[in-house]
């Protein structure tokens, strides 16, 4: 069936448009609090003595700490076609450690729009990429997240 695409030109205009950058200081207290919140007792993430003798010489952040460095709002709101939204997944790539004392600049952009038919009817998959750049200008990590927008509410099973 040659159905009309839910991906409008207005949506396409959002592709690769970066959010305003936000710069965060990676604070020791915030890293330790994050490690404790996820229940991770790894000494590299909270013990200064162990960290000093470890591979980085200083406390480093657990990999998903980056989630707490929240990107700024998009320049304009993405027009979601459907009322229901699910978090589909995440893909991190790590290039540099995140050390206490680093300054990380975060930007985010929608990089891919895909439409599929499935159990929930027409679904729009929105992939966004968040980029984390350290104070040396090095790309320290990226995170790709996929949101799923759909029209049909999920039925209780």
């Amino acid at each position, binding site marked *: 069936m040659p159905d009309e695409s839910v991906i409008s030109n207005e949506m396409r205009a959002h592709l690769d448009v970066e959010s305003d950058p936000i710069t965060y200081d990676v604070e020791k207290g915030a890293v330790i609090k*994050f490690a404790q*919140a996820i229940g991770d007792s790894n000494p590299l993430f909270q013990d200064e003595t162990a960290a000093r003798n*470890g591979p980085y010489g200083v406390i480093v952040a657990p990999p998903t700490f980056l989630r707490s460095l929240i990107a700024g709002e998009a320049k304009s709101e993405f027009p979601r076609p459907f009322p229901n939204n699910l978090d589909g997944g995440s893909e991190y790539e790590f290039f540099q450690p995140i050390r206490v004392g680093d300054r990380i600049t975060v930007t985010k952009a929608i990089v891919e729009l895909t439409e599929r038919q499935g159990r929930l009817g027409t679904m729009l998959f929105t992939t966004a990429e968040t980029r984390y750049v350290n104070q040396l200008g090095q790309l320290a990590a990226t995170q790709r997240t996929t949101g799923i927008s759909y029209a049909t509410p999920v039925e209780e099973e």
Partner: protein
Amino acid sequence: MTQLYYEDVNVGDDVSPLSKNATSQQLVKYAGASGDYYQIHYDDGFARNNGLPGIIIHGALKNAFLGQLVTDWMGPHGQLKKLSVSYRAMDIPNEDLVCSGTVTDKRVEDGVGIVECEIALHNGAGKATTPGKAIVSLPMWGRTKQ
């Protein structure tokens, strides 16, 4: 912490499993630490009004558990290169969750030992609600510097 070396690892090996049980208190701590204050993770009435059975665990917290699975296993001198997860089903607090994994590939790239794993978080009934993949580099015993 014990260090895992590239030579110690074989395709088909298990990633040492990690048990977790997220209480409602942990979800509140995670909300504060991560800045994700969406009420479906700590306000039961709000969650039910949104068609959920009650409060649910943050996907990103499950992602963090799977990150710990890998960083615990690889040891301090391992490096996590890639961590991907997909959220196939919701998980609820106070269930015995198990994170586990299997080594699927190992190879040397530019003198660096690379190991790939399939990983997953399983709910109390043993269902893999959150499968994923991880790629790590591990130190090598027999490495000769040129």
